[in-house]
């Protein structure tokens, strides 16, 4: 028997495979395809203090080996999550994280405080890296002082696992990573989407209503791997790596670069069963390489 369980700073996951926020709904959308309980964790759709309608259509553009999105955190607000969604999903036997976003520090704090009361939510993922909202979101995550301020403020009220999701849209990701670690983050997840753009030349128009949006899919994987590697060498807290993971091999690359766990995002759209295939593929890799503990993969890159 191989050990697949990983420890995120005191929070145990049955395996390192999680789903990325905004790509997996609340888990329910995938119940027809997989057993949610088989996953290490799920991060549910970005939640804000108040209802948000999100951005106008079109919100999506297919790009070479990936896609742009500009959903803009459409959600019905944290109170709706607590009253309507949470009772339906709290039975999942997996680590349920709520992705928390906001446009002001007080909003993040108020949302996190409410989620702190939910027994079956062991952690939140603080989203300081959403590129698709006009105010807040990524604005917090691209400068150290604001990233620290929001992380510290939430840390004061949130008593469980605090994962902070980092933006790749920065000059030096390690500076933000170290600052957020210092402000009390229990783990760091990266990367959120890369700010990008697509144009329809025939119409001379942008493909997205917001003109720019977040790029995801295998096209971002090399950038994501590089950033996970850099952050792994800069901080002590566990890293949850993501960015274009399509299969078990991609997941293992992220773990070798330093990720303790990984999140699968866009690939869920192409194969709603991909998460289970990745878990099986990691087991298969461990058998082939005679590795008994998945934790031995973490940061296991041979560089000399």
């Amino acid at each position: 028997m191989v050990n697949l369980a990983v420890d995120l700073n005191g929070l145990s996951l049955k395996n390192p495979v999680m789903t990325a926020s905004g790509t997996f709904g609340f888990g329910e959308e995938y119940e027809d395809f997989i057993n949610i309980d088989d996953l290490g964790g799920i991060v549910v759709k970005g939640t804000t203090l108040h209802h948000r309608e999100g951005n106008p259509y079109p919100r999506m553009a297919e790009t070479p080996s990936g896609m742009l999105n500009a959903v803009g955190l459409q959600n019905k607000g944290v109170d709706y999550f607590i009253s309507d969604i949470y009772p339906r999903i709290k039975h999942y036997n997996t680590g349920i994280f709520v992705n928390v976003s906001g446009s002001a520090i007080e909003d993040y704090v108020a949302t996190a405080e409410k989620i702190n009361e939910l027994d079956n939510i062991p952690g939140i993922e603080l989203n300081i890296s959403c590129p698709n909202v006009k105010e807040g979101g990524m604005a917090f995550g691209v400068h150290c002082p604001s990233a620290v301020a929001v992380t510290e403020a939430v840390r004061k009220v949130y008593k469980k696992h605090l994962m902070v999701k980092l933006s790749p849209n920065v000059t030096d990701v390690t500076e933000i990573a170290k600052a957020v670690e210092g402000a009390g983050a229990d783990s760091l997840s990266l990367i959120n989407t890369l700010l990008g753009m697509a144009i329809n030349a025939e119409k001379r128009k942008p493909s997205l209503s917001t003109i720019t949006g977040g790029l995801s899919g295998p096209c971002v994987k090399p950038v994501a791997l590089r950033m996970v590697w850099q952050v792994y060498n800069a901080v002590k807290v566990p890293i949850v790596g993501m960015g274009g993971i399509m299969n078990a091999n991609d997941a293992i690359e992220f773990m070798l670069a330093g990720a303790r766990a990984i999140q699968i995002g866009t690939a869920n759209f192409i194969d709603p069963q991909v998460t289970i295939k990745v878990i099986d593929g990691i087991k298969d890799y461990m058998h082939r390489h005679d590795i008994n503990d998945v934790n031995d993969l973490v940061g296991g890159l041979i560089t000399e």
Partner: protein
Amino acid sequence: MHDLSQGVYMSKQQILLCNYTMSKKVELLTVTKNRRINDEYVIIHAASQDKLPSIYPGQFVDIKVENGPNTFLRRPISIHEVNESKNEIILLIQEVGEGSRLIAKLSEGDSIDMIYPLGNSFTIPAKGSKALLVGGGVGVAPMLILGRILKDNGVEPFFLLGARNNKILMELDNYEKIAEVAVTTEDGSQGIKGFVTDHPLMNEDLNQMNIVYTCGPDPMMRAVAAKAKNKDIKCEVSLENLMACGIGACLCCVVDTKEGHKCTCTEGPVFDIKDLKEW
């Protein structure tokens, strides 16, 4: 095949309820036939190894196109018909981009990876109603299965199909087996010259209809919807918004409704125009 074919009238709410509890699956089907019908269109039959689940008119499949950086996401394709005895889903494919061209190249024996059945359904009106089914271009696809189900339920359907010219018009036999078929072509090469909205069925004869269904290019559907609305006739449109997941997870394919943004993939693709903003 399901309640609809047994002549049971189902309200939209009931149908949505069915869909909500109905399970979706991802499956490798086998192409059993690929027949070219003209320069732009092929009809593909794909067989499941299992008994097909209930499939409602207006629903779609989401097809994984193999290979290539430019066909990264699945392609949503409307269900044209089903052959229950052979467990076949029948799709009308228009070659418009790299994805649809690759799908159109599939041949007998090839596998085709689909998530299905997806989306809600057109509603079926009371027995004895008259229904106008207006399809333009590849938008005729769901009209065939809809026409059959309507007829099975005691509704009298009339097809009105539009195309640019007769070279890319559908084969009409299958529609004619179900109901009268009227045609418009933009160049007048078959039927009445002009758009579907130029046909008497959309004008002086529209009053006799109880419901209008439409699927096709956005300007066509809006023109059809405007005429139906003007005469206060119920009108359902099947939207084709860009989507990433097809199962209500990504929230990319939203349409602006009077109740806020709704997903075309799970809360549509069929909408009553009275529920939509700016229609």
